[in-house]
């Protein structure tokens, strides 16, 4: 089923386990405490890397959607759906980690002044509607087309919403993660990079696992009918 040049799934799973463990060790034992925010700042290593992973999933979903519409790649529809699904899972984790951080830092579970939280709330609503749309149409070419077009709308909505939230807000976001800032270097940078790679590999593993499961489901249904 998989193409020959692909990394086998067990190897991928082992790699993501090792990377996530390494990231946890680095985040909790190696990275120094942030000078102004202390221990709680460490959640940012996960928060930011999960957020970028969610964007990557939505981007991959839109890329597969484009392939479906453009090249009529028969596998692209399912791949696009699975990528968006993973994106929503990681997006929910962004909301969760962001809320925890907001509670610790400011004593509130929700802050409208926090750009990324608000953006992910909008995206969460948008992609929740994606599932409503997809499961409200019978399986077939029309469902594939609708899902693909809506997934493309999603990647356009991300920058437009980001811009909207930026121009709408009244407070300034505390810029902890300006990559060139003096408060971000050495072990902090290494920890962040490892956490980022770990999350991306982990997401890719989950994506492959779900895809294999969905394909086996589809094949089984075909065999039963045939």
């Amino acid at each position, binding site marked *: 089923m998989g193409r020959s040049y692909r990394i086998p799934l067990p190897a991928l799973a082992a790699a993501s386990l090792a990377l996530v463990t390494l990231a946890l060790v680095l985040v909790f034992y190696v990275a120094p405490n942030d000078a102004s925010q202390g221990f709680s700042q460490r959640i940012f290593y996960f928060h930011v890397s999960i957020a970028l992973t969610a964007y990557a999933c939505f981007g991959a979903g839109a890329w597969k959607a484009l392939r479906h519409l453009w090249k009529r790649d028969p596998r692209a529809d399912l791949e696009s759906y699975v990528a968006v699904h993973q994106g929503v899972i990681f997006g929910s984790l962004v909301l969760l980690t962001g809320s925890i951080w907001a509670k610790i830092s400011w004593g509130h579970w929700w802050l409208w002044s926090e750009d990324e939280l608000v953006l992910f709330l909008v995206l969460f609503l948008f992609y929740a509607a994606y599932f409503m749309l997809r499961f409200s149409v019978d399986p077939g070419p029309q469902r594939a087309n*609708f899902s693909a077009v809506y997934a493309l709308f999603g990647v356009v909505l991300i920058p437009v919403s980001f811009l909207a939230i930026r121009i709408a807000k009244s407070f300034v976001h505390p810029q902890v993660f300006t990559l060139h800032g003096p408060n971000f270097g050495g072990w902090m940078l290494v920890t962040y990079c490892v956490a980022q790679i770990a999350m991306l590999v982990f997401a890719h593993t989950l994506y492959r696992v779900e895809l294999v499961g969905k394909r086996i489901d589809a094949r089984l249904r075909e065999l039963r009918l045939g």
Partner: protein
Amino acid sequence: MNYVADVRALARKDLLLELRARDTLPAMLLFVVATFVVFHFSLPAHSSQLAASGLLWVAIVFTALLGLGRAFVPEREQHVLDGLVLAPCDRSAIWLAKGIATFAFLGAAEVVALPVFALFFHGIGIATVAAVVLADVGICAVGTFLGAMAVATRARDLLLPLLFLPLAIPIVVGGVGASVVSSPGRYIWFLALYDVVFGVLCWATFEYVVTE
């Protein structure tokens, strides 16, 4: 040009239907005025004018939703869409014509709604009017597109607000910004950007919505 003639014929059909049946526009008008009355009672005394400006945009978005929900109903009930898809015209002409017709209904509703708002709450500046026009373009472009999708699903009317509202958030941000700040330039530009970006996207992908 052939494309323009197609769009004109299709838009004319929708406007003519509305002129004869009159089922969308009176409903939108009544809805928007009723919404203003509800807003009057939902705003406590001495609340700021800014709150009312924000509510104007809520009214516009929901009135538009009412019209958009009706947009593809004749197509669905009388199977017009099958005929249109078979016709030798570019599919995006269907979207453009429907968008223009919806824009006309929404615009007509607002010609009444904005003076009523000024009468009930407070005066409206030129920036708000400009923002309303630009927002209408975006609402009709995206809303018509999603309306065509929603009408083909099992959930139908239930689905359109769910699909539309997350995409309408940037419009509301731009519109409210243009209504409440003293230098509304960048909000107006933002609305124009939204119209261009989503207009092009809808125009380019509508073909996939109406064909199997």
